[in-house]
């Protein structure tokens, strides 16, 4: 009898194995600017990159200290806000942005478009991510009833009971507190709007408008190499020449490789150096990421690769995510 068991019969569709993506040790997002900031002169861009540069250096050193043999694979990236403001011109914005970044000693390896987090290469990344949502059950949830969900919203606990209608009619005006699940002593309750369904109006068809935190959650999933479409990698970087920009963002790939032979775009760990104004968005991103069921095959594959490379990897996705908040450049509109 043979000691090696080989199956006598197998079928191609019975066991899909996800395809791997190349992984760096660390991916660093080197700042973020609203479109208004990008179109309002050089100073604001320059101030932010100047403040980002030393932290990027610090992250490089910190990552290198974790890698015992050889050079740490680190790549940098920058996300453009074209989902909410597609009306600007890349051929104006990009040369200026890259020049100032270079002046400040920051090389941007990869450029990504926020609209690409909605859809990249005709793959609906935001819809795929929506399908991964796992709402948190209230205490006493047996599975008998479907979870009471407000479409498009996600919270990290139990909302204040609805006091409108019958209750209020009887004069009950007592406030009941919301509660964070798994809290430490006190609650920090967060209710995030993930999308809004816009009904058809004036010739424009009904559509779903994704929120900034939801697209940012998709962004982190792509950076962590955790998203697949039917086992295939999504939003893979495509080389793009830095001296040739079209007039609209739509003409650009979702993720572009701008530098020569950079480390891979996706990484075991990701860090974002952002102005402090993004604190609440990143909190929301963390809540969304903590409420997703990931593709188990991808999770296992990544964990195995980390072990092979001697990389220690936390089991939970959000534990692989670092935020550094820097002082924000004051907004034009001050009130």
């Amino acid at each position, binding site marked *: 009898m043979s000691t090696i068991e080989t199956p006598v019969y197998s079928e191609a*569709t019975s066991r899909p194995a996800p395809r791997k993506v190349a992984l760096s040790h660390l991916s660093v997002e080197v700042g973020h600017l609203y479109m208004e900031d990008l179109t309002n002169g050089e100073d604001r861009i320059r101030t932010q990159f100047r403040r980002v540069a030393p932290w990027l250096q610090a992250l490089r050193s910190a990552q290198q200290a974790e890698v015992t043999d050889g050079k740490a694979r680190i790549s940098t990236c920058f996300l453009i806000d074209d989902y909410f403001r597609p009306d600007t011109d890349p051929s104006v914005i990009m040369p200026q942005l890259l020049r100032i970044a270079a002046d400040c000693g920051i090389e941007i390896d990869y450029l990504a478009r926020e609209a690409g987090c909605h859809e990249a290469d005709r793959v609906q990344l935001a819809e795929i991510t929506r399908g991964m949502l796992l*709402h948190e059950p209230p205490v006493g949830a047996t599975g008998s009833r479907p979870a009471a969900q407000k479409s498009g919203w996600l919270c990290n606990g139990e909302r204040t009971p609805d006091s409108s209608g019958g209750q209020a009619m009887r004069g009950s005006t007592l406030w009941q507190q919301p509660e964070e699940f798994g809290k430490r002593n006190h609650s920090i309750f967060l209710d995030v709007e993930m999308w809004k369904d816009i009904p058809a109006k004036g010739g424009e068809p009904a559509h779903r408008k994704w929120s900034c935190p939801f697209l940012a959650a998709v962004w982190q999933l792509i950076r962590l190499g955790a998203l697949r479409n039917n086992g295939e990698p999504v939003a893979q970087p495509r080389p793009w020449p830095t001296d040739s920009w079209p007039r609209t963002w739509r003409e650009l790939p979702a993720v572009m490789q701008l530098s020569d032979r950079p480390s891979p775009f996706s990484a075991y760990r990701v860090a974002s150096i952002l102005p402090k104004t993004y604190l609440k968005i990143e909190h929301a991103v963390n809540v969304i990421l903590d409420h997703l069921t990931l593709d188990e095959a991808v*999770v296992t594959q990544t964990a195995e690769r980390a072990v092979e490379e001697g990389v220690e990897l936390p089991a939970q996705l959000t534990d692989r995510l670092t935020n550094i908040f820097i002082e924000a450049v004051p907004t034009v509109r001050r009130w």
Partner: protein
Amino acid sequence: MVIIGEVRTSLLHTSLPLPGAAAADLLALRPGTQVRATSRPINRTLSPDTVTGVDCSLPSEPRTRSRGIGTVVTRAIVVGGMVAQASSRAELEWTDYRERKPWKYYSRRPGVIEVSGPVTTDQVLAGFQMPSRQPETLDLGSISQRMINHVQDRPQLDNLTALRTRPTSMRWTAVGVEDAVPAVRLHIEDATMRTVRVTVPPHLLEEAVGFCEDLALHDWLYTTLGHVIAQAERDMARDADPMKGLRAGLSLLVRLWMPGAHVSPELRPLWQGLEAVPGFSEPWQRQVDWIRDQVFMRSLAAVEELHH
């Protein structure tokens, strides 16, 4: 190590068996995640898993305090393009920590429920095998039922059925015991409810899920063919034509009978046990023969009538 589960089985609301590609389309319930399918010896299509969070007491006998926090995993299955199943399951893991942890801890462990409190494994197993579910305790049946409703309501189905059938429920427990010889006990609770206990070595615990789904399928086929015969007998007793139901039973159900075909080879001995007591394939074959005889004799009689 313990897994508990509940399978609901029903006739798919379709007039003709769905081809493999249509079944895959029907069960594409999660964007970006592949449907799994095998085409031999008979088509069996599995939806991607859906996950449901729970935080509640577990059924127990005698009733004992417990708290289970975690997730239930559910999948829909279509066999032979004709039978729909929804299968929910959760592995139970005992823990000393009674408070709820941050959700990311549970969302990273789909299909695991952490159990705290004085309740023992045996009490939960006994509670789960009770004929009626204890109120306010874990309800895998409702989760499965919602999944089957969701599939049956999909626009891919024409909502016509050639046979009147009843859905069945199978509530099962699988216990992993070192060096255990695989064993199964099937109990028919009433017309639609069955309970099953499986004991296997720990490394085969995951495979027990597929076995219980296969057992639920064949129990449903057996039960349904029994209904077809009972209906035919009632028709014949009141001189009505039983042929429509008999023909539908023959053409839709008989080809689906393949106990163990999609079960891990190591667990096929469980089927051998059930074939011995209470017997599955032999009485099934006798039912099929009876139906064929009826159809044959009635066809013959019809031909003879034509000649006169």
